[in-house]
Structures are given as C-alpha cells and as structure tokens.
C-alpha cells in the first residue's frame, strides 16, 4: 500500500495514540505514536503490506528527557518506507517487543537494549551481543553521558 493511503488509514484507526504523521519524501513517511500504541500501530502496518523490517534505532535526547526508538519497515510491493517512532521516558525506557510481529527485529532489538538500555518486554534473548561479556551492567555506550576518551 502506498504511503498516502496508509496515512489516511492511520489517522482514522490510530487517532488516540497518534502524535504525528507526515510524508518527508515521495514514498517515505514517518509516524510517531505513544508507547502504548506501538503494538497496535505495528500490527496495522503489517496488515497493510509493510512486512520487511529494515532497522531499529534508538536516539538519546537528554534535553527532552526521552529516548526515541525508531522502527524502519518497508513494503516491497509499493517500494515505500515507513519510520515508526515512539518516545520513551529516559529513566525507565521499556516497551513491548515487536518481535512477534516482525521476526527480523530480533537482533536489532537486542543491540538497542545493549547500547541504549531500552528494555523490550517479551524478547527471549536480551543479553550481551556486541560488547564483551564482562562489560559493566547499567552502562549504555550510546547514551550521551558515556564519553569517549579523546585521542591525541
């Protein structure tokens, strides 16, 4: 389904959890929902043909006090992309895992947990992935308070 029709459908069905929905470029839309509506939005996207997961990223905004998690999915028939975003409170970021809906986000969510501390409930394997096994608990490298030591 192409993005214009998708945005119509989202505005009708997800009106209670929708924060923002816009089209950035031809065939590229971005949708921001509240955390409790993520599963509903994801299911709606998958039913409309967006079943090819591309990536899961987390962005740390300390000045806003939130961690934003972005899911990029694409639809292979209409060749379009959707970015599904949500903002989680920075102190306790947790959201239900979307692994049941899109199988391919398994390793992406594991990496986002490891790097940013976002807990995905229902994910069966949240453990160390890219960092070494004896990395300290509670230290998340991609948060802004983790500073890299500057090289000379």
């Amino acid at each position, binding site marked *: 389904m192409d993005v214009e029709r998708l945005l119509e459908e989202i505005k009708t069905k997800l009106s209670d959890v929708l924060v923002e929905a816009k089209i950035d470029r031809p065939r590229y839309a971005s949708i921001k929902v509240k955390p409790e509506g993520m599963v509903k939005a994801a299911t709606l996207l998958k039913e409309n043909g967006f079943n090819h997961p591309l990536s899961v990223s987390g962005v740390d905004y300390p000045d806003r006090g939130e961690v934003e998690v972005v899911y990029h999915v694409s639809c292979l028939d209409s060749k379009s992309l959707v970015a599904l975003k949500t903002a989680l409170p920075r102190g306790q970021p947790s959201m239900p895992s979307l692994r049941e809906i899109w199988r391919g986000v398994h390793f992406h969510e594991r990496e986002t947990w490891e790097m940013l501390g976002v807990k995905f409930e229902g994910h069966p394997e949240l453990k160390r992935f890219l960092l070494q096994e004896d990395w300290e608990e509670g230290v998340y490298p*991609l948060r802004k308070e983790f500073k890299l030591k500057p090289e000379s």
Partner: protein
Amino acid sequence: MPIRVAWGIQHPMSGHLTLYLDVDGDIVLNTEADVGYTHRGLEKIAEYRNFIQYVPVIERACDFDASNFALGYVRAVEALMGIEVPERAKYLRVIAAELSRIMSHLYAQALLSMTGGFETMTVWSANDRELILDLLERLSGARVTHTYIIPGGVRADIPKGFKEKAYDVLNYLERRIWDYYKMLFQNKTFQDRTMGVGVLSKQDAIELGITGPNLRASGVDFDVRRDDPYEAYDKLDFEVVVEKEGDSYARALVRFYEIAQSIKIIKQALKDLPEGPIRCKTPPMLPRGETYTRIESGRGELGVYIVGSGTNKPYRLKISAPSFRNLAGLVYLCRDIPMGDIPVIYYSLDILLLDVDR
C-alpha cells in the same frame, strides 16, 4: 546425546564469528551466534567526528565493499543537507560503486568455493579481483579503502588512460566469468554440495529481513537501484537477476550474474560520461532534522539513519548493515542440518562480520 561444539573463533573457516552448535552425531540441532569480536563502536565515533572526517571511518565498516558503504553514508548526509551533486559526479560514483560491487562478489565466490575445498576457484577469483583492485587504484589511489566518494561529489577526476585500461579489463572479465561458470557452477560436486542446502522460502526471507542477492535468490524481485533509484541508475540500463529456488546454489548464481550486469553498467557509464564539474559546495554544518536513505551495496541493502544537530558532527548515526540483517537468516537456517552444511550456508549468505559488528 548432543555435545556443544564451538565452531569458533580460532577456526580456519569461521571468520570473526563463533557459532555454538549443539551437535548430535552429525546433525546440528541448534545454533547460537556469538558476534562482536570486531566491534569498534563506529556509531559512537560518528558523534565525535565531523561529517567529512567520518568518510574514511565508514569505509572501514566493511573494507571489501568500501565505496558502497561510503556512498550510503554520503547520500544520507546530502539528503539531510538537501544538496544535489553534479551529473559527472553521479556517473563517476556509479563507476566506483559498481567496481566495488564486482570486488565484493568475486571475494564472496572465492570464499564459497573454499568451503568445498575447491581452492582452484578461490585462487582464480582472487586473481581476477586483483585486476579490479588495480583499476580502483588508478582511479582513487588506494586498492581497498578508496575514500573516493565524499559529500558534494567525488574527490578527483578520472586519470588519463583510465578508460582504455578499464575497457581492456572489463572485456577480459566478461569472457573470463564464463570459465567460472563451467568450472564451478557446472561442477557436479559443487552442485551436490550447494543445491537444496539452506533453502529460504520467499515468505521467510521477507519476514526475517534478508536483503540483497539472498532476497533475490528466493524469488523476490526487489533491487534498490531500480526501485528507489539514486545517482545515475535511473538513466542506465540493466537487469535485476532473480532466481526462485532460494538455496545456496541460487544465491551464488545470483551473485555471478550480477557481476556480468555490473560490467554492463560500468561500460555504459564510461560511454555516457557527461562533462562538467565533479564537486559542488556543501554547507559547513549539518542542519537539524533526520532522514533515512538506502542504497544497494554488494552484500545487500545498506540503510543509514542520520539525525543532524546543527553542528558539523552528526547527533546520531545508525548504520543498518546488510550482514546484520542476514545474520538472522543464518541462525534461522542452521537447524537440523548436517554439520558439513554450516560453512556452505554461512558463506552463501555472504555475511562478513565487519559490518555486523561495526
């Protein structure tokens, strides 16, 4: 009784990966992948380097396909800034990207034939890859990590004598790959080793997020160069290779035909090269905002999500690397198979751990 074998990091054929296998006799019951041996924290480094300084860093994210990775990052930066490069630069970028793609596919073929113990094909493929590396050295000055594509255009124009030398090499390679076809793809032992091994159905491939030649070998007709075109690909004429079986043989065959298609693209680009400048001015700072762009690298679709901060350093850079997505396919496929199939599946999915770890 199953024993747990570490198909491990100190293994001649495992790359930078440990697979913990639960093996019963000869059958692998379950796999667990342990990655992260080459994790360099490239995404964190991006927040500390300005956007020009980051181009060599992103090329090291995977140095067998360096120009394509650089192109992915540079396109994201340019999309954020909203600038468009001159026509000549677009064609030159296409030439560098396609040469890099041939390099990556030849290397993948060399490694896949090594898994069958077929060192002859490994050495032949590596031999011909040297010619492409020489061409890239003429073009950019370095064999492997070129740093040729930068935000705003390309770094230098093509040198004198490059077109003739390129035509020589490409004509030779066009004839030579049919030798590979006879030696490798029509070899009964190789077919026995790879046909029917690691079959990914179309639905599984789409849902797992598999990308690149692996997706096209399972019957999905999708190529970012044709469907979401960038640079000069909408003006060039090429075919997208699709196979239906989804086994390792189909994946190797798709890569093989893509080498032939890349040669066609480079010849057209050299012929149609327009005159003009090779670089345009870029604003000194990255504007605020965010965007996601994608390109087709040798191993699959590379997506870059960049959040600009108003300074010349990105606020957040996320690289969605192709091998990271194909890793889900590896763990999904390595169940209930004989142990001798594991290296075949691993190398036919063309997973190189450098871009899994970044």
